[in-house]
């Protein structure tokens, strides 16, 4: 897996063929599609196997629905946040003081679930289907993106392999929003990279309607858009400048659209932040003074946190921090475009904010699993070192196995 021959995309036909036969032919001959499909199927079969067999191998946790032979199939796949998303579809948004509140679920994923529900599909099953379809599509877009950006199909293959077998890839197959976010985030970045700001606006608004942390995508988006902004400024194309600005900030537009809905439905456009603030003890705005008071007290406690749950959280933060530093070095070594590093900067900006919470966010591993530049960094590193290819993949599979086992056995590592 060390072939580094330069890659040139196939020449495009001068006349666009829009017929479905032509589209199918293109798809069938699409370079790398079958590789991505194989990797996707292999990784999902592994998740499925662990999900079915796992509860028999480890003592079931308190949230385990039981063994596969005695329980409804979707009890395994629709857990925790997935139940909240289902509640948005079935009951709509609700937020009662000291009661159930599901407004932290952003609307796009439930809207897609409801759309399939209208076609007669069970909404929980719809969530799982959407999640898996989006993950496959996301891997395919990521493959093409890396292949075209670095002009090396081998690098793209490594990247999607690391991503599909990533330690937290289980969340991309259950009824969570991770896959949809991943698909839209990578498509958004790709559209900006390929100088299509119009499409970027579309993808950006959609990703902003998917998850709150989409707002961090503005950082890499600004880096990607900057050369186009310079050109537009020099040629005094004001319309183009406005379009580029809208493209870069489109995740915020999506976010604000949801805030507008909250204003209409609940009378407070900051309802989402307030609910989070109440739940996590977080400040609604960034407070550097609070952050500075907390930093000196930061301890790892990898082995001596109060319980396994907190140890898992400590390890998630520690590994994410280590992998991020590793990624910065790998980008530096490979002289990768700066937006990759900017993506990580945006991600850590969000988590610096989250560090104001009473305790570190326990979903760090899940959030990190979607930062696709980390997998690109791993691939850049491994591409130069053949021994690292199998080593990193093996480490990923071990991590994925442990996480998936724990998840399906009913331990709350949400």
């Amino acid at each position, binding site marked *: 897996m060390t072939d580094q021959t330069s890659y040139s995309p196939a020449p495009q036909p001068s006349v666009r063929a829009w017929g479905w036969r032509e589209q199918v032919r293109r798809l069938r001959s699409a370079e790398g599609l079958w590789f991505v499909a194989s990797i996707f199927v292999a990784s999902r079969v592994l998740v499925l196997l662990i999900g079915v067999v796992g509860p028999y191998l480890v003592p079931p946790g*308190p*949230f*385990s*629905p*039981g063994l596969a032979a005695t329980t409804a199939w979707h*009890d395994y796949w*629709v*857990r925790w946040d997935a*139940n909240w998303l289902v509640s948005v579809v079935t009951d709509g948004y609700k937020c009662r003081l000291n009661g159930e509140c599901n407004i932290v679920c952003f609307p796009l994923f439930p809207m897609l679930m409801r759309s399939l529900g209208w076609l007669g599909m069970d909404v929980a099953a719809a969530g799982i289907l959407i999640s898996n379809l989006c993950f496959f599509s996301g891997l395919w877009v990521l493959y093409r993106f890396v292949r075209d950006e670095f002009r090396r199909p081998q690098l793209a293959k490594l990247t999607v392999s690391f991503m599909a077998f990533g330690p937290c890839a289980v969340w991309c197959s259950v009824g969570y929003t991770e896959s949809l976010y991943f698909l839209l985030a990578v498509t958004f970045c790709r559209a900006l990279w390929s100088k299509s700001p119009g499409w970027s606006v579309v993808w950006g608004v959609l990703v902003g309607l998917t998850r709150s942390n989409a707002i961090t995508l503005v950082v890499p988006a600004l880096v990607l858009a900057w050369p186009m902004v310079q050109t537009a400024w020099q040629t005094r194309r004001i319309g183009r400048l406005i379009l580029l600005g809208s493209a870069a900030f489109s995740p915020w537009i999506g976010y604000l659209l949801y805030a507008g809905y909250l204003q209409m439905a609940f009378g407070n456009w900051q309802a989402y932040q307030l609910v989070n603030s*109440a*739940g*996590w*003890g977080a400040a609604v705005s960034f407070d550097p003074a609070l952050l500075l008071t907390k930093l000196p007290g930061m301890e*790892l*406690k*990898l*082995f*001596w946190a*109060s*319980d396994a*749950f*907190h140890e898992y959280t400590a390890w998630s933060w*520690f590994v994410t921090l*280590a992998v991020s*530093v*590793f990624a910065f*070095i790998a980008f*530096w*070594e490979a002289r990768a475009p700066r937006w990759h590093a900017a993506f990580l900067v945006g991600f850590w900006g969000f988590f610096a904010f989250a560090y104001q*919470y*009473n*305790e570190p*966010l*326990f979903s760090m591993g899940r959030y990190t699993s979607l930062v696709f530049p980390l997998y690109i960094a791993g691939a850049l590193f491994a591409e130069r070192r053949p021994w690292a290819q199998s080593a990193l993949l093996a480490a990923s599979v071990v991590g994925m196995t442990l996480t998936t086992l724990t998840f399906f056995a009913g331990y709350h590592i949400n």
Partner: protein
Amino acid sequence: MNDKTSSLLHTFAYGLLAVVVTGSIVIDFERARRREPVHDRTMLPLVTRERAMGWDGPWEVRARGGIWIMVQGLSFTEILPQARRPWRHGLAPATIVTVAPRPQAARVKYAFDNDLPDQVMTIRVGGREVEKRGPLGEGQVTGEVEIPPSTGELRVEFAFACWKQPLPDTRKITVTFRELTLMLP
């Protein structure tokens, strides 16, 4: 900067990162190993972040100050970042604490939240009913139970009439214990 210098710098950076990561893990492991648990030897809390000593079938075993205690019908310790203290759900039909033989009397201090208005609690010590409270209504309930000296094991049973099973939770939850502590003299 030529490629060779660049490569050396990168190797150094990767190496430094590996050293820092490994060092942090080793130091943290050492701190965990050497950490002296600070315990009040006159109290044996069951609603705590401290790990249990072990399990004997359904019984969770804890020990302190030469005395051991076993409990069943008490779910695992839960904590959320926004909560300052952990909690454990009581499980139907009863939360049973078995205390080792002791020459002196002791007390079990309890505090729990109840959100089932018709809830009735019956406390039995050694099979004898010592207290019955209810309907408890919604809110927090606190109290203490005296445990006489005993030459054998003594069962302290907190039996509850009602339970709930909030989906998708599979547990039959009676009340939410905020405190359940054996107080030794």
